[in-house]
């Protein structure tokens, strides 16, 4: 009954989080009852298609679970609104991100990153506001998307997702913390770099300063991906590839940072390990040495964590691709018979 699971999966995408599992269990049980009554034990694919068609298109079924009343954007339009809002949001954020990266590459200044971040904060509400306005007008004139009027064919439902749905609340926490971290980075960047002051300069990290805009860009890409994931509700091939790409960008950046730190250490005439650097605490600039060593250790830990995470993503991407290929192989076989 893969078709039923695909159907329920699609309905579930448009249901409220807190009621999803319960509603889907009830619909599954109802579809089973209908199948049993229609097909007496051994339902054909045609029976399943018929039963699903009787229940209705996924978005329409899901919309009927939202409360009735006066709407700015009603339940029938809301899933369509979510889709368009997501596309507009992705285009706005993506476009500005590309513009920011190009601007950093050209000017190589921390200010460009701060500007890009502030512009992003400005443009997101403006873009979303425009979409809301268009949909509110559609709702007012009772206009519905054409896709709902077409005959719904259950065979065209998307395949079953192998990955479990993501934990949406955890994703929100990640987005909030990521944004706070980015704001800190931008604040540091704008105030003249990574300099800790206590009466006099304790230490500066010239390597961090050099790569600061790229670190901020990497964090920003991470936040955008988290927003995208929160919206999609689960890992998909596109988001996974994007995540792997973003991680590779971070790995390259961390390698450059580590390499820069090592070069700086050897220039100062000290060895590779933090312990060795602690011996220099009493000499002039000793605190800078400790600071640099701490950063270096943090980069190394981050590099290991991201490398492991990337390996897991690559493994899951390959596993899902292989299993999708084998499923479509079976489908082709059964069609040709």
């Amino acid at each position: 009954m893969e078709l039923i699971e695909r159907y329920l999966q699609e309905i579930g995408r448009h249901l409220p989080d807190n009621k999803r599992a319960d509603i889907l269990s009830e619909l599954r049980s109802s579809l089973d009852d209908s199948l049993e009554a229609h097909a007496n034990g051994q339902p054909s694919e045609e029976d399943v298609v018929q039963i699903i068609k009787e229940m209705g298109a996924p978005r329409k079924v899901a919309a009927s679970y939202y409360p009735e009343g006066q709407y700015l954007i009603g339940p029938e339009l809301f899933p369509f609104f979510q889709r368009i809002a997501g596309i507009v949001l992705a285009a706005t954020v993506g476009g500005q991100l590309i513009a920011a990266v190009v601007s950093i590459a050209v000017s190589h200044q921390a200010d460009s990153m701060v500007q890009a971040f502030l512009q992003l904060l400005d443009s997101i509400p403006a873009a979303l506001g425009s979409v809301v306005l268009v949909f509110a007008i559609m709702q007012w004139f009772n206009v519905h998307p054409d896709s709902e009027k077409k005959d719904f064919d259950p065979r065209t439902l998307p395949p079953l997702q192998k990955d479990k749905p993501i934990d949406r609340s955890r994703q929100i926490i990640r987005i909030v913390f990521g944004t706070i971290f980015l704001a800190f980075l931008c604040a540091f960047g704008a105030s003249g770099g990574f300099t800790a002051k206590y009466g006099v300069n304790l230490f500066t990290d010239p390597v961090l300063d050099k790569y600061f805009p790229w670190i901020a860009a990497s964090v920003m890409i991470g936040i955008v991906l988290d927003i995208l994931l929160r919206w999609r509700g689960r890992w998909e091939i596109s988001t996974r590839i994007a995540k792997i790409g973003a991680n590779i960008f971070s790995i390259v950046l961390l390698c450059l940072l580590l390499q820069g730190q090592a070069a700086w250490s050897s220039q100062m005439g000290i060895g590779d390990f933090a312990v060795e650097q602690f011996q220099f605490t009493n000499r002039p600039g000793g605190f800078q040495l400790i600071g640099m060593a701490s950063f270096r250790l943090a980069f190394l830990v981050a590099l290991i964590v991201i490398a492991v995470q990337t390996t897991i993503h690559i493994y899951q991407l390959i596993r899902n691709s292989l299993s999708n290929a084998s499923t479509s192989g079976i489908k082709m076989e059964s069609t040709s018979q």
Partner: protein
Amino acid sequence: MVKNIQSPSTVENIVQELRRGALILAALSQLDDEKYGYALINQLEEHGLEIDQGTLYPLLRRLESQGLLDSKWKVESSRPRRYYVINKTGKAVLKDLAMEWRSLAKSMEKLLADVK
């Protein structure tokens, strides 16, 4: 100029609006004993009232959230099903609604007597 021929979706919307209240009354009237959704659909069909699953299940949930029905999951013949039953508040509301319906039906019969 008066537009006489309305689009099918307009007629469909009006029919849906007309049926909405009636379906609430119909569902409440048949839930003296606990029933799961599919059994209720069959029972309503036996009385000549067709209702699709996509309409009934959200309706039952709304009635439950309005405090007129109670529900619980039960496992029968290895399949879990959600059973609904009318509660005390639901019975009182049903009584009022039935009275309202009868009065409305009487008036409507008179009003529609000349419509062919």
